């Protein structure tokens, strides 16, 4: 069924519309949440909360500002980061070394490996996408984890986005346009 129609029905209080959106997006969101919090039980609780929030706040979703998935991802990201801050007082400190110790240096778990197009990127670009999108780090946090200056990190991000754009099929013409804009304004 058309996504816009489902969202319209969701606004009208149709639970089946929520379940349809759940079936479509729960995997994608669970992938993000689980990689971010690295705890299956916590990720499952969070996923349920995320869809309850979608149910309660669907009136705040404005389709003219972006896609439904983007909106849902933001909810997922913010909820997970908040839950991580609450669950571990060490994360509230500004000391990135502690932050890094807790969230980066644990043993890698099986669900963390990335799949698909992102694996075709160079290693440091993969890392950028992983940190920023799947781990929820801000640029200021992520560049310290990667051990590169902030400016370099930002360049990596931009290159990674351009490469992603190249790998996904629809995007080539707009990439050129984008580069043109960046170069000439």
């Amino acid at each position, binding site marked *: 069924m058309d996504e816009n129609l489902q969202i319209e029905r969701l606004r009208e209080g149709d*639970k089946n519309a*929520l*379940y349809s959106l*759940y*079936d479509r997006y*729960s*995997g*994608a*969101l*669970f*992938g*993000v949440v*689980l*990689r971010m919090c690295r705890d299956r039980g916590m*990720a*499952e609780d969070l*996923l*349920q909360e995320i*869809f*309850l929030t979608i*149910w309660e706040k669907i009136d705040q979703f404005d389709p*003219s*500002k*972006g*896609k439904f*998935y*983007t909106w849902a*991802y*933001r909810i997922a*990201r*913010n909820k997970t980061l908040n839950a991580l801050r609450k669950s571990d007082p060490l994360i509230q400190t500004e000391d990135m070394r502690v932050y890094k110790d807790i969230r980066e240096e644990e043993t890698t778990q099986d*669900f963390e490996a*990335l*799949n*698909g*197009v*992102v694996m075709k990127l160079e290693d440091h670009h993969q890392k950028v*996408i992983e940190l*920023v*999108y*799947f781990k*929820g780090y*801000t*640029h200021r946090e992520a560049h310290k984890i990667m051990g590169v200056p902030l400016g370099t990190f*930002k360049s990596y*991000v*931009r290159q990674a*986005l351009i490469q*992603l*754009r190249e790998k*996904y099929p*629809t*995007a080539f013409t*707009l990439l050129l*346009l*984008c580069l043109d*804009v*960046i170069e000439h*304004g």
Partner: protein
Amino acid sequence: MDRKTILEQGLLLAYLLDELDGNQREQVEQVLAEDPVLREEFTRLEADFENLAMENAIAPPASVRKRLETKLETTEQPSQEGIRSLKGTKTYDRTRLLVAASMAALFALSTFWLYTRWQEAEENIRLAREEQQQLKETLEILSGEMREVQQLNAMLNDGDMIPVLLKGNRLSPEARAVAYVNHKTRSVMVNPKALPPLSENETYQMWADVDGEMISMGLVPTDQELVALAYIDRAESLNITIEPKGGSDHPTVERLISNAYL
């Protein structure tokens, strides 16, 4: 802020990730709303990240969806929950709460009452305006009709006015028309309302007979109350014929439907 700044500073990604502060977010949203190129760029970025997330999806256990369904079924009636939570909170001062609730209720009621009265007043004003407009229109119609009646009355009461009844002949036995001839003011009016309607391609035409010659007085449309015609000197009779649309220079005598001597 413009497109160039947003792209160069990577703010589009930061916006997608919800990392901007309120002020920056508003600025980016404003540019996005106004700049279709940037908007398109953002849509592509969203699509790329959605693809990325889909490719890296991890299926959650079915129990999560079941829990979600159960949760939604049990929170069906949020109003009851609201009442429960109020009851459960013992820190509230019951009397103060009651006073506040009463005042709120009173305020709500009075607001509602005022709003209703206001709406009624608005509606009354609207109705009064409509009524006034209708009265004005009626008055204009009546004034127009009265002027016509006055004119007709003045004409009919004129001592010099001679009414002439024109009856239909066997070609049109139903036809009736009244001509008002005033030799003093040299005017002729005809009331054609009782002439049978004609086809679109035909018209009534009136003629004055002067020394055996028929002189056109003009066309007689049947959709008017009174038709002014040309006054012809020394007319001996008035004649009505049916002519092709637009009238004729010479009468079609075969279709003469009425005549009357003066």
